[in-house]
Each structure stands twice: as C-alpha cells, then as structure tokens.
C-alpha cells in the first residue's frame, strides 16, 4: 500500500548528542566488555508490560501486529505482569485515580526497568492539559521516564523510533554499578500558566497523592 519504512544506518543515528557524550565520557566507570555484552543482551530483548489506558494502546497493538512488527526490535511479547516486564510503555492518559496504581506497578517491576511515555497525554497531559480536573499533566510527575514519544496517537513508526532510542540509551550506560536515577519528582511549586489568569495567585500544582516512599 505504498508506505515503506526507510532504513537508517546505525552510524548516522547520533542526532541525539547527549547520549553520545554519555557513552564517550563513560558513566564514571570503564564499561567492561562483560558490561557491554549484558547491555547488548538487555537492549535487544526489552519486554513491555501490557499497560494501555486509552487510544495509544490501539496504536501499540497495531505496532505489535504483523505490519509494523515490534518483534523485529526484540519486543517479542507483551508480559501481563510487571514481574516479567522490562519496560512499561505508558500508552494513554493517566488520571488522578490511576496515578497510585501506575506508581505501584512501576515499583513492582523488576530492575533494570525503563519507562516510555507514549503519546501526548503521557508526555504532558496532551489535549486534556487545560480545563480537566482529573488528568495528570505528564507521567514524569509519577514515575521517572526514559523516552518521550510525542503524537496523538503517535504512528507505529514513531513508537518503533522511540524504542530504538531506548535501546541506545540502555547500551550507553552501565546498569549494574550505577544507581538508577531517582524519579524526577517535579515538585512544581507554582505552575506558570501560559496566559495570566485574572486573579493574582497562580494556581499551585497539587501533586497527586504519593504512596509513601519505601
């Protein structure tokens, strides 16, 4: 039907300079060949958790279908339980009632674990940023995110590109020695609204109820 996915050589893939420096400057320790072997193994078999809340879930299923095949990139199967999943692809809107559930799912995943924020709703609240009383504006307020994929819903190719970026990120850092980065708890004191609201005090950002830190 006329849509080919243009292939890309691995070398000219370094449009993401930050990852390249991280690899060259080394993550503070000499990445032994054993380390890079493990990272090669981990990055090429990242199993996602079946976690889809709304429309992006359908595009994730279409990516799992036979046309934009996920399994070519090592995402062989969607594991149903977080115990056997490596990456949690947050596909869809996260609302305030769902935030503690997502936090609990993330905590119950086995290390090393990664997060892909798929779709505008997971990245920043998407079409529900304004005037919605229950949507969490961005998943990184709940769990630390590794790769953001914009789009509403993002095309399957965008999800594949996001997964490739995650694989490069896994290869670039050693996950055994270095402590995993703590979740970027954006304790936003004040939210700078795009347009000043009439009354003076800008609305403070009430962060969602956090489960007590372990």
């Amino acid at each position, binding site marked *: 039907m006329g849509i080919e996915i243009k292939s890309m050589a691995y070398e000219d893939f370094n449009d993401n300079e930050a990852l390249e420096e991280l690899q060259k400057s080394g993550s503070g320790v000499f990445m032994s060949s054993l380390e890079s072997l493990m990272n090669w193994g981990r990055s090429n078999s990242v199993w996602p958790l*079946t976690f889809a809340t709304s*429309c992006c879930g359908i*595009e994730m299923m*279409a990516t799992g*279908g036979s046309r934009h095949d996920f399994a070519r990139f090592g995402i062989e199967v969607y594991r*149903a339980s977080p115990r056997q999943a490596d990456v949690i692809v947050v596909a869809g*809107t996260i609302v305030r009632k769902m935030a503690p559930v997502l936090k609990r799912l993330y905590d119950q995943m086995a290390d090393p674990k990664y997060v892909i924020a798929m779709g505008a709703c997971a990245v920043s609240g998407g079409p529900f940023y304004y005037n919605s009383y229950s949507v969490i504006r961005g998943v990184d307020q709940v769990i630390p995110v590794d790769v953001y994929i914009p789009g*509403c819903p993002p095309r399957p190719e965008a999800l594949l590109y996001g997964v490739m970026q995650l694989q490069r990120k896994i290869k670039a850092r050693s996950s055994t020695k270095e402590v995993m980065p703590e979740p970027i708890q954006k304790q936003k004191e004040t939210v700078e609204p795009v347009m000043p609201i009439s009354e003076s005090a800008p609305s403070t950002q009430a962060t969602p109820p956090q489960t007590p830190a372990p």
Partner: protein
Amino acid sequence: MEDTVVDIDLKEKEEYIINMGPQHPSTHGVLRFETCLQGETVKYLIPHCGYIHRGIEKMSESLTYPQLIHLTDRMDYLSAHINNEAVSLCVEKAMGVEVSDRVKYIRTILAELTRIASHQLWWSAFGMDLGALTTFFYGLRDREKILDIFEESTGARLLQSFITPGGLMYDVHPNFQKRVTEFVKYFRKKLPEYDQLLTDNIIFRERTQGIGYMSLEDAIEFGVTGPSGRGSGFHCDIRKIEPYSAYPLVKFDEITFDVGDTYHRYLVRMKEMWQSLSIIEQLIDGIPQGPIMLELKAIKAPKGEYYQRVETARGELGVFIVSDGAPSPARIHYRTPNFSNLFIINKISAGHKIADLVAISGSLDLVIPDIDR
C-alpha cells in the same frame, strides 16, 4: 463410616475477593472487576470505573462546537468517525441546516468502514481473550488496509477529526473510491477465513455457547444496545429507528438473534460486517458531486436543547446539547453505549467460571474511555 471427600472441605468453602484490576489483559483498558470468587466460580462482580475519567463533559463546556470533535473521537476511539458524525449532526440539527448529499454519502461510507475496522479489532482481541493468538494477526492485517484508506483521505490512522459540524474538513482523496472498492473486493474473500478460523472452531464454540445468557427484558432494562443487545433480540439499531445521513437510501437488514448467549453476540458482529460491506457497495459508486462544507457565518447553535442518536460500532450514542446561543455549549452530555453495556455484566456472569467471565466481557466489546468519558 467412610467420610467422603465432599464432606471434608466444608471449611474451605468461604469466598475470597480478587481484583481483575485496572491493568489486566482481558479488561481491554483500565476497568476493575472486583470479583468475589468461590473456588473458580464467580459469585458476584462489582465493576469499578473511573480510572480514565478525564472530565470531557466539563471540558466541552469551554470549547466551541468545531473544537468538540477533537474530544469526542478520543472517547470511543474505535468508532471515531461515528462519534464526530454524531456531534456534527446534532449541531447541524440545532442550526437547522442540511449538509449536501456528497457529504452524507462520504459520512456513511466512513462510518461503515469504521464499523468494520472496529469489529476486526474486536474479533482479534476476542480471539486472544480465549487463547487463540492467530486471530490477532489476521484481524490487524486486514484492519491496516482500512487505516491506509483513512490515512490517505484524512491524514490520520486512528483519530481522524475529519467530520466537522457543517460538513467535512476537506475533500476525500481522488482515488478514495478506487481503494474502497478494492478493499471491499479484498475483504469479501478474507471474511470467510475469519469464520473458518474461529466461528467453526469447536473449542471456541465450547467456550462461548450457552455462556453469559442475557434475556431480552434484561437488555431493555439495562439499556444494552448495539450488537450486545441485538444478540438477545433487542431491536435497537438507530440506523433503522431514526435513520440519518445516507442510511435512508441504502437497503440493509438489522441482525438480531433471540438466543442471547456469548456466541450469538459474536455472530451478530460477524454478520454485521457483511451488512456494512453491502452498504458500502451500494454507496461507493454513486457519490454525487457537491460542496463539502456549508458556508456558515459562525457555527453557533441557537438557544434550546437538541438530542441526536447515532449507531456506533458498540451501540447507541446520544449527544445532548443544551445551548444558550453562545459559540460553546452550555451543557453537553454523551449517552455512551459502553456505559450502559457494562453494568449488566454482574447479572450475566454470576455463577460462571472466571474463564467464562473473560469470554463474556470480551463479547460485550467494551471500550473503557467511552465508559468514563
């Protein structure tokens, strides 16, 4: 004298509560079933929703009418065109305007293509619910053909926001007609494959026949519409009761069975795909020429209350607009099909095994953001 095994386990008969919770492969989204189990049989079941409640009705009160369509197709994302068509028809009814025949034809063809695509995805997910992985690849392979047609004409695969109040966003692609006829010819050969794979499969029949019986009175009492209601003989097809767009011009019959078990809800959807194909064939060659957008000064609904009923892939969607004459609605309520189809699950799955509960909730074909809005 001999204490048979059955007497020993009196103590172990108490029930326990298991959450088929928000993150579960067979709830097709973030819906939580708090099931009380005794052994493997479901005693009762409490559905908890709200895990994807985004407050669309509150948001719609601050959006203008053309902006509404960007939220309605994110409610039931598998019948995106039909949701947008519902809002557009309601606003056009409020303004008392009538779209051209070309727009009516194209809207109905897109709606029927969406219905087929939605049934294909339901069929692949339903097969996977019962453990047949092959249906996933067959169903999505054919669905990609429809998504290519949508993408070529509207620019987006899943959520198109193409049908706006007053007509269409832009005209369809020149070879829209060629590709749709191509698809219909292709899919008429492929649909019998679906039947061979699942409908005639003895394991599938064993898992679905006689399971989850829903009587006609229950269907009417709970307001279960769409293929789930028609599986029990409830004549609720809005395309027949209150025809809109180009439905008065086409001949098709409303599929209903009186048996009301999971297998017949499945059969209703399979036969509906044939009906949708014949509707498209009756319309695709006769798309008249005409303007695709009405020249309107401003899309404003005059003061009053308006209601529009539309038949989506899952049932009857009602759009209720209360307008004060402002460009944005004073109140808008979406009577979504999934909200009414959901709550009968406790009545029809009590006493079944938990594996049957998965089959029953699959046969109801629930899309959860449509429940929570």
